[in-house]
């Protein structure tokens, strides 16, 4: 059989992985949004030339291991505490670029106090908030963001507002705080959405470096394993159900 060898030259290279992304195989389920968001952050860090001055704070949640994938300095925070950890890193190294990367359980449930007050203090950091409306890591329990009627391991008959309250829209809340300069809701489920999301990440990191205040980037995301769907089904379900509850687009840009 003939062998076809494609020579790797600059001319025929359409895509190359940013060196800010390590070669480690990601542990995320195929179809999960986390991996795509990681890649976008890594690319922006490379494009801005800030690898040597960036400190990431990873959460407890599926993305706890973000530190295995982005080649920067990382602090892994206790569940919900990323914002407090990032506050100190930012205050002690004001010229560095500090961001947190958190899920909806981490930021909107157990870390509510830290996450609101980091915004209220207007720390010049970026918060990347991955809202998949479920606790992915612990096996698909209800999060504050779970939709009414949505079934999870701890609301097996569907979320009932009488029992569990209502989906919590953090972005619409923190946008009211004067210390917050940029609030946007993005997704990464189509190529067009990915391009927009990357721009939002860049803006957030640039705001932070410029000392403009806190930038809050929410990603409406899939957790196909937690939702018990195929990746394709999950993308479709997200578009039809999650996005109407958490509409995409800029909420604040000052």
């Amino acid at each position, binding site marked *: 059989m003939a062998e076809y060898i494609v020579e790797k030259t600059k001319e025929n290279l359409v895509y190359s992985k940013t060196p800010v992304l390590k070669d480690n195989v990601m542990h995320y389920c195929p179809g999960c949004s986390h991996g795509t968001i990681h890649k976008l952050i890594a690319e922006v860090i490379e494009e801005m030339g800030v690898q040597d001055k960036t*400190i990431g704070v990873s959460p407890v949640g599926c993305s706890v291991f973000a*530190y295995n994938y982005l*080649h920067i300095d990382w602090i892994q*925070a206790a569940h919900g505490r990323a914002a*407090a950890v990032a*506050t*100190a890193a930012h*205050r002690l190294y004001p010229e560095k670029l500090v961001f947190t990367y958190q899920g909806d359980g981490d930021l909107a449930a157990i870390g509510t106090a830290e996450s609101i*007050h980091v915004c209220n203090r207007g720390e010049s950091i970026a918060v990347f908030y991955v809202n998949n409306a479920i606790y992915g890591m612990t096996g698909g329990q209800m999060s504050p963001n779970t939709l009414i009627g949505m079934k999870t391991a701890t609301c097996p008959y569907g979320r009932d507002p009488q029992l569990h309250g209502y989906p919590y829209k953090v972005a619409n809340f923190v946008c009211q705080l004067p210390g917050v300069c940029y609030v946007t809701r993005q997704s990464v489920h189509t190529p067009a959405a990915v391009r927009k999301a990357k721009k939002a990440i860049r803006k957030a990191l640039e705001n932070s470096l410029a000392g403009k205040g806190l930038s809050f980037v929410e990603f409406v995301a899939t957790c196909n394993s937690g939702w018990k769907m195929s990746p394709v089904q999950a993308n479709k379900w997200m578009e039809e159900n999650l996005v109407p509850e958490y509409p995409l687009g800029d909420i604040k840009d000052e």
Partner: protein
Amino acid sequence: MGEVKLMKGNEVIAEAAIRCGADGYFGYPITPQSEVMETLMERKPWETTGMVVVQAESEVSSINMVYGGAACGKRVMTSSSSPGISLMCEGLTYLAGAELPCVVVNVTRGGPGLGTIQPAQSDYNQAVKGGGHGDYKIIVLAPASVQEMHDFVFDAFDLAFKYRNPVMILSDGVIGQMMEKVELAEQRPRWTDEEIVKMHSSWACTGKTADREGNIITSLELDPYAQEQFNYKIFEKYARCEQEDVRFEEYMCDDADYLIVAFGSSARICKETIAIARANGHKVGLIRPITLWPFPSKKIAEVAQKTKGVLVAELNMGQMVDDVRLAVNGAVPVEHYGRTGGAVYTPDQVYDALKNKIIK
């Protein structure tokens, strides 16, 4: 001789933090230690040494700010009192698990629950036995004077970085609130960012430069065998600390027939008790553990076995007495005397306890 001033224990913590070149203080108000942050905010060290001071939204947040600052290789600290320390226990175990240096000042009050705001020593076990989950230790220094409040801030930072581990200064409402003469150290410069890179870039988040891999501060390990190896490693570090950094004060033990073991403010009261006892013809000595962990077990055992009995006097229902009994290992009787909830005993009351329980 350095500058001598009359100061409150809590104010001295703030003064010593600035003078020892600390980079950051993160706190939340609680009696009886609120003067620490109040003094710092009044002194505005960010305008002089560059030290950062932040009032957090809770002790959960302030200890995690300490975690973040320590992860950056900076010299950071917090202070609180009993209920606040309970909230910090999660952070403390993460700090120990991620091998991060920091200083935590605990000006204890009476409990349980919201309790009282009067001095107590009922958080000995929480401080010495962990407080948070998992196999770990924190180094605990117990000051008995305003001067020691000052000196131990310097010592605590040295120990924290020597072992890359949290160090607690376990004080109480007496030492925090009383005024005494204190000799202040000269101002030491804060470490520059370049110095921090030189000393700590092997582990700290100083920015991933081209000459090194990214540093990761974490306490997460999925493999139980790797976690076991890690725990062995930190316990080797703790063993070294037990060899090199046990501290205590020995007072009138040479001819002692009876021994009192007491720490912090209680040890001061017991020195008066010893004067009374000796005036009445009883030769009593005192060992004051200064490091509550590592505990001066060897010294206590060595002195106790030459006596007829030991009284452990502490402002609680009996906590350090367990460690003294373990040290003495049945060689002579060991009894406990305490008051609790914020009530403080007089030297006479301790003397009575000594007569009732030990001298007989």
